[in-house]
């Protein structure tokens, strides 16, 4: 592992008696990136987070977080964590929860007030700092959880389903917050089912299935090529041939599809069609979504498993 790596695992495995929760996780999360960790239910995501945070002991393989072995006490000072299912003490005020976590995180007491005000502002809870947590809505508890995770200026933040309880405004706020963390060089390990959210904020993703990473890479590489669909009438076959220079062409009724295609070529394509006498009714630039890729990869995995058995 180099200094440029925040998290690295090699064949990290966890077995509970006969059940294999994690079969051998190998992945690298570079520092300063937003890393999406995806997979279907039961894929081993939660187990992986447990192991990375030292809440469970691996039965095989190894891993390091911020250059330290998993669960290292000193390294935990530099890690923030938002659990998926959590609650804070309902009898404490939001500010008191944050103060307790400042103390637990080893933040010097003269920096508590500044840190608490800063994270409250980041998550939009400044006005509710003096309220009991028991009176908070689920979304506000989620915001408080994110604020707790950001205390102590962590170098790595694990966010487990950070937008699950939030409304669209809250989700946009979390996206902005993740961008803010990236701008400040913080590594974000994002575990989420909301693939649209992941696609919007992540630099890199890993998809796990049956306890193994089935694909890992930059999101641009993973989503693959762009395409364009154009609905055209009054366009003859000769003119269609002129579109070949922009990329492979397929035709279904009035719809022409060119894939892959350079995004910059789309105006030229439209101009070519119009010059050839075609009437353009619709232009839909397209790209495989993360969800498309995710489902396709899982189907391939299932087919491979079926073939093996």
């Amino acid at each position, binding site marked *: 592992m180099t200094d440029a790596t925040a998290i690295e695992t090699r064949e990290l495995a966890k077995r509970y008696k006969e059940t294999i929760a994690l079969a051998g996780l190998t992945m690298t999360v570079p520092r300063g990136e937003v890393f999406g960790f995806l997979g279907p239910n039961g894929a081993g995501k939660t187990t992986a987070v447990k192991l990375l945070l030292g809440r469970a002991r691996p039965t095989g393989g190894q891993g390091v977080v911020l250059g330290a072995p998993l669960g290292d006490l000193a390294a935990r000072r530099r890690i923030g964590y938002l659990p998926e299912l*959590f609650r*804070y003490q309902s*009898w404490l005020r939001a500010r008191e929860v944050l103060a307790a976590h400042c103390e637990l995180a080893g933040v010097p007491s003269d920096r508590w007030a500044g840190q608490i005000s800063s994270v409250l502002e980041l998550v939009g809870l400044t006005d509710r700092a003096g309220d009991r947590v028991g009176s908070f809505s689920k979304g506000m508890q989620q915001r408080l959880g994110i604020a707790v995770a950001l205390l102590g200026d962590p170098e790595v933040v694990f966010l487990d389903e950070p937008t699950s309880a939030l409304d669209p405004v809250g989700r946009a706020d979390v996206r902005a917050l993740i961008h803010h963390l990236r701008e400040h060089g913080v590594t974000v390990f994002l575990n989420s089912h909301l693939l649209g959210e992941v696609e919007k904020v992540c630099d890199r993703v890993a998809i796990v299935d049956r306890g193994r990473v089935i694909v890992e890479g930059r999101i641009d590489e993973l989503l693959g090529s762009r395409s364009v669909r154009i609905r055209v009438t009054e366009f003859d076959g000769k003119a269609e041939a002129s579109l070949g220079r922009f990329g492979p062409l397929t035709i279904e009724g009035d719809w022409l599809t060119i894939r892959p295609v350079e995004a910059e070529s789309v105006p030229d394509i439209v101009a070519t069609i119009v010059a050839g006498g075609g009437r353009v009714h619709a232009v839909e630039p397209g790209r495989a979504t993360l969800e498309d890729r995710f489902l396709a990869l899982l189907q391939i995995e299932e087919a491979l498993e079926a073939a093996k058995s």
Partner: protein
Amino acid sequence: MKTIVRLTLVEAVRRRILWAFLGLTVVIALLTAWGFSVLIDSAQRHGVNDVQIEVGVSQILILLAFMFSFVLAMSAAFLGAPSISSEVESGVLLAVLARPLRRSELILGRWLGLAIIVVAYTAVAGVFELGVTKLVTDYLPPHPVPAVAYLAGQAIVLLTISVLLSTRLPGIAAGAICVVLFGLSWMAGVMGGIAAALNLPEVASLANGARYLLPLDGLWKGTVFSLEPPSIALLGQLVGGRGGQAVSANPFFATSGPAPAYLLYVALWVAAVLGLAIFSFRRREI
């Protein structure tokens, strides 16, 4: 660890646990005052002598202590039983354990916070009860501070076992087990006394073993001995032999307090069970 201790104390205050305890104590103290004044008044009108009144008052005080020992033990059990498990279930501990905090610090912090609550409550309740008794009857037990300390000791023993159980079991299950253990330990104490009086060494040694497994009975006898007027203890010693053992068999009489070695054993027992709780929680994957 001090963060956990502080959070435990704040929780007890904010969730009105302490206030409920203190309110009940005041009510019981007022009832005690009223009961004793009626008793003394009636006894004096019927010509009961002062020694008999003193014995009667001490016996009622011991019964009150027995009630408090039960209340304290149950309170300790039900404070300790959910202390870890409920926070694991609710997810409160997930963010806490991600911090640079050892699991041993969490266990010791929770235990210490709850122990402070239990000991403070015992002290306040003890001062209330003994103060009211002294005020109304003019009877002050020979060893009031040890009496309260032995009561607190029983609560600490039960608190410690409940924290151990809480590292693995849900709060309700751990609490129920503690109630049963308390009952069994008390029964073992009575059985041991009866077996000794009837000269049944096998039963006596069996009961004695149970008394050491959960060391509550010896502390209870310490409370009784500390609350009795010296005349009662002297009576037991004078009767001696089988008769003396018969007196000892009664759970509300004691001819002597616990030996220093026994108290040392209790302290070691608490430390060992706490160590076991830490070991158990460190092995648990959350």
